[in-house]
């Protein structure tokens, strides 16, 4: 297999960091992505402040189209869609971030240990990871949901678990290429403990690709969450999760297009933003970075 080895210490000195920032901000797409994400974060933080209505309050007027009172219209149960999309930003962004954190932490740990210690430890961990990887696509998340039951929290766990193998493999392959560096050998020679070496010296050296993968994964997690909502195994009502709102509104696409379209566009914009940022980061760190190993 090919490994493109990047020897920069990403956590390195201030000049490197400044160079990275300059490269990132020169990328027009990345800047747009960052702006969009910034907007969504602000909306998420101040959702109660921006929202004209209570997002879960039902109005027995039923579904009405966009108007001054309800700029995005109301859904089937008369709930204000603008408010729901705003509050949904909290939930959907959180869904993305938390599930990625779960996958990132556990996957990286597995990959670090496997790559650093090698031998039997590595074989056991990587066989297990390979087995997880053999559940293609959304399947692993579905099985986890089946055991835990649907609900926002469980969706986060399920999506998180389903990304573990990717992180583990990426982390391991990067560890393998970093482990042999003279610097690490030297630290080892000085008699540092394994854990210290892994976290203090190796982890910073492999963090670049992990950060890029995580940025892209946040968007992906939001999409997987919406797929689970579509299958009825995602967030539960009346949670204003974007995927659930898009899925709930889909049966009205021909007569009340707004119910599904606005949350759908919210997903589209947020996921696009994450992808743009991820691409920008990758370009800045190392255009040849490989994430699939």
């Amino acid at each position, binding site marked *: 297999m090919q490994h493109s080895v990047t020897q920069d210490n990403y956590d390195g000195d201030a000049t490197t960091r400044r160079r990275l920032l300059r490269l990132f901000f020169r990328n027009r797409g990345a800047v747009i992505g960052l702006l969009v994400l910034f907007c969504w974060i602000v909306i998420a933080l101040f959702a109660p402040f921006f929202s004209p209505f209570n997002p879960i309050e039902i109005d027995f007027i039923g579904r009405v189209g966009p108007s001054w009172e309800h700029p995005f219209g109301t859904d089937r149960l008369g709930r204000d869609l603008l408010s729901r999309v705003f509050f949904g930003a909290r939930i959907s962004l959180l869904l993305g971030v938390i599930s990625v954190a779960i996958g990132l932490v556990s996957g990286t740990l597995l990959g670090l240990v496997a790559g650093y210690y090698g031998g039997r430890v590595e074989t056991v961990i990587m066989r297990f990871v390979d087995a997880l990887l053999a559940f293609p696509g959304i399947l692993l998340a579905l099985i986890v949901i089946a055991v835990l039951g649907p609900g926002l929290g469980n969706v986060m766990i399920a999506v998180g678990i389903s990304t573990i193998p990717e992180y583990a493999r990426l982390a391991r392959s990067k560890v393998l290429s970093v482990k042999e560096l003279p610097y690490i050998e030297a630290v080892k020679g000085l008699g540092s403990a394994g854990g210290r070496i892994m976290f203090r010296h190796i982890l910073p050296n492999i963090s670049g690709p992990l950060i890029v993968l995580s940025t892209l994964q946040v968007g992906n997690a939001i999409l997987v969450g*919406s797929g689970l909502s579509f299958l009825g195994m995602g967030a539960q009502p009346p949670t204003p999760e974007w995927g659930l709102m898009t899925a709930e509104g889909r049966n009205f696409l021909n007569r009340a297009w707004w119910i599904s379209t606005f949350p759908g566009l919210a997903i589209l914009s947020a996921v696009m933003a994450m992808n743009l940022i991820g691409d920008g980061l990758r370009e800045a760190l190392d255009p040849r970075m490989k994430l699939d190993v």
Partner: protein
Amino acid sequence: MFTYTVRRITELIPVLIIVSVIVFSVMHLLPGDPTELMLAGAEGGAVSAERLEELREVMGLNDPLYQQFGNFFVGAVQGDLGTSIRFRSPVTEIVLDRFPYTLRLSLAGLAVAMLIGVPLGTLAAIKRNTWLDSFSMALSLIGVSMPIFWLGLLLILVFAINLRWLPTTGAGGVKALIMPAFTLGFVSAALVSRLIRSSLLEVLQEDYVRTARSKGLTGRAVLVHHAFKNALIPVVTIIGLQFGHMLAGAVVTETVFSRPGLGRLVVNAILWKDFPLVQGTVLFLAIMYVLVNLIVDISYAWLDPRIHYG
């Protein structure tokens, strides 16, 4: 090459054993009794406890777990994946019955991914930093950022309900395959085009391409003979991965377009707690997936003469 292939195949065996252990234990963690649902339906009539007991006995669900797993495992090795609780047919038969539909859809999805992704990515690379580049990349960005079911339903509304060019749903014929294939393949098309673009750009910087250029070869010849073949290598990997994802990831597409397939089969089996069927289908999908990856790795070696496997 031969020894490499053999080694890879033997490596698959522990993976598949772990997969079956995971699925088996997970399915037995699930709440609910499938026989009850099978007999009474979600809203059927009353069924006596004796009848449930009889059925559990007939289906071997009263055996100890290790024995059930042993039976499953011994059967699986011989190609017998047990009997579905809900369908009352052999799992192997059901899986093989649905597999052609999934395969057809995945292949069509893959074709869409290549037919859209490769030209789009190549164009973007050649016309780097022009509006064509921006347009192609924006399109592929939308492709990877949209909920699949939403895309599918929009397609149905526009092309089937309003324009009436294509059938809304169904499993028969090429016409019925167009929209599902597009829905399924669009995400992959986006990934492929981005990958082609970046790896073409990378290859075009390589020394040997520059050498070829300096030798007076025209742009097109360079592109076709040198750059393209090398740029394809990472694409092969992603295609392999995408194909594996499509096999199981078609759940949503299959549901939207009311098509039979393995994805829907396994989702419904999970919901109905039909564990022989879940075990069998997941195992089958896992085998397919690892085999596809194996083929990818081998073709990798074939495409890139620099790589040698012992």
